[in-house]
């Protein structure tokens, strides 16, 4: 067999494998949702105030969490990318923890820290009268907790592959470190930044465990789309499927809109 035909066989096998995997794991579950969807009643299911509230809340909270992840994650990623050492390793483990922890455990941990009797929460409540559990702010906190690691690791990767010589060039042109970061580093790692924002947003949108544990489940205040799906699943499966379709459509539209940013064509 010639070298080129072996190569093309390998390419074909790879393509088949890719199609089979994406079908089994991604396309079929989606088809299952579509297959069971109560198409005739879909409009009515989606027009209920509960769905509208959950949708609005989910959008607000997921975007807020993505923005917060960016604001808090950027300095963290910049610091992590600046070198190695035991302190950085420790911090990186801490940052990565929410990715591997079951979100419910994360929710409990958040309660122990920011709950009414939590380490910080009791101070917040007694000193400022601020209570995070059972509030929309609590939802954002829970979503940021699970989304932030994705943002930090993505952006750190981008910063690590950033060629320092561009920053050096900017410095020799008279730019302060902050100006270099703002006008050269950030624009040049923009693809990682967008990717980080998109994964953080997606993770925040789908967040369930930490939210229901930390922020509770109250329509209009803390019941996001995933919580609404969970609640409906037990009583009104049709509504649950309808809500799931909303989640899927929302994610699909945003991911499609951002595809160029996420996978920039070079």
């Amino acid at each position: 067999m010639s070298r080129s035909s072996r190569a093309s066989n390998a390419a074909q096998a790879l393509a088949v494998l890719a199609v089979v995997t994406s079908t089994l794991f991604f396309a079929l579950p989606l088809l299952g949702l579509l297959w069971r969807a109560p198409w005739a009643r879909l409009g009515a299911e989606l027009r209920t105030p509960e769905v509208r509230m959950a949708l609005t809340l989910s959008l607000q909270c997921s975007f807020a969490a993505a923005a917060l992840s960016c604001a808090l994650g950027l300095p963290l990623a910049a610091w992590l990318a600046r070198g190695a050492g035991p302190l950085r390793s420790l911090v990186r483990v801490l940052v990565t923890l929410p990715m591997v922890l079951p979100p419910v455990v994360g929710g409990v941990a958040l309660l122990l820290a920011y709950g009414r009797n939590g380490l910080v929460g009791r101070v917040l409540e007694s000193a400022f009268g601020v209570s995070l559990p059972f509030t929309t702010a609590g939802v954002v906190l829970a979503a940021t907790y699970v989304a932030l690691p994705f943002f930090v690791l993505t952006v750190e990767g981008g910063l690590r592959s950033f060629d320092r010589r561009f920053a050096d060039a900017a410095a020799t042109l008279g730019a302060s470190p902050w100006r270099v970061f703002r006008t050269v580093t950030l624009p040049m790692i923009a693809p990682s930044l967008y990717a980080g924002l998109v994964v953080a947003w997606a993770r925040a949108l789908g967040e369930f465990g930490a939210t229901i544990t930390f922020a509770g489940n109250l329509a209009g205040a803390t019941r996001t789309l995933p919580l609404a799906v969970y609640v409906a699943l037990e009583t009104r499966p049709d509504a649950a499927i309808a809500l799931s379709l909303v989640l899927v459509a929302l994610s699909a539209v945003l991911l499609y809109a951002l595809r160029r940013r996420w996978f920039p064509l070079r």
Partner: protein
Amino acid sequence: MHDLFTSLAAALVLAGCGAPPARTVTVFAAASLTAPFEALAAAFEAVRPGVDVRLSFAGTPQLVLQLREGAAADVFASADEIHMARVVESGRTAAPPRVFATNRLAIAVALGNPRGVQGLADLARADLVVALCGPEVPAGRYARAALERAGVAARSVSDEPSVSALISKVRLGEVDAGIVYVTDVATARASVSAVEIQSDANVVARYPIAPLRAGQGGSPIPAEPGAAEPGGRGSDEQGVDHGADGDTEAFVAFVLSAEGQAILRSFEFGAP
């Protein structure tokens, strides 16, 4: 080296196929039944050697959902009759359900009742953070019924997905008071205190149990109880491919027996 390998291989083969096929009874039980059913299973296995009782606990609605999607289970013990009715309507029950226990509601508060909750009426206090189970959960439905009977307008800050989630929030101090089952507070006695609900407002929760037959994925369990489509799938022709030794029926009978009832009573469940 070679010997080691062959003996390892032999051990793996033995582990995989050597054991005699176990007779198992898979029980789906409401989360509030966790403690008594673990005791019941142990006692049943003692009197009926060779049977392995497998327990799966979850919120009742979740169990109904799993059964609807064809989960393999031999017995269903529900926290209320409404959810059991939906399983009956789907044709998965092999015999009519029977109530095997009752339960009552209580108010769970932090240990020692620091906020001085006296009864249902206090749940309307503005200085208390109150949470209930969601209305889709039996405990949540009962709690709302009790509040309504007592004429108390309490505001739930969160519709908790299960009694255990609600109790843990009371324990953590995030919630000052929550309505749960008497039995739950009894189990969690070490970390929460109970405030009694006067009997004129209290609700009696009835727990039915039924043996199941093998289900098929997508059995149309009706979304709303009582709204079953007439002429749902006939189930007579579906074979009962389990309990050949009558283990399933024996387990249900054991729960209803004097010995089973004594175990339930020891966990403060009421008589049927």
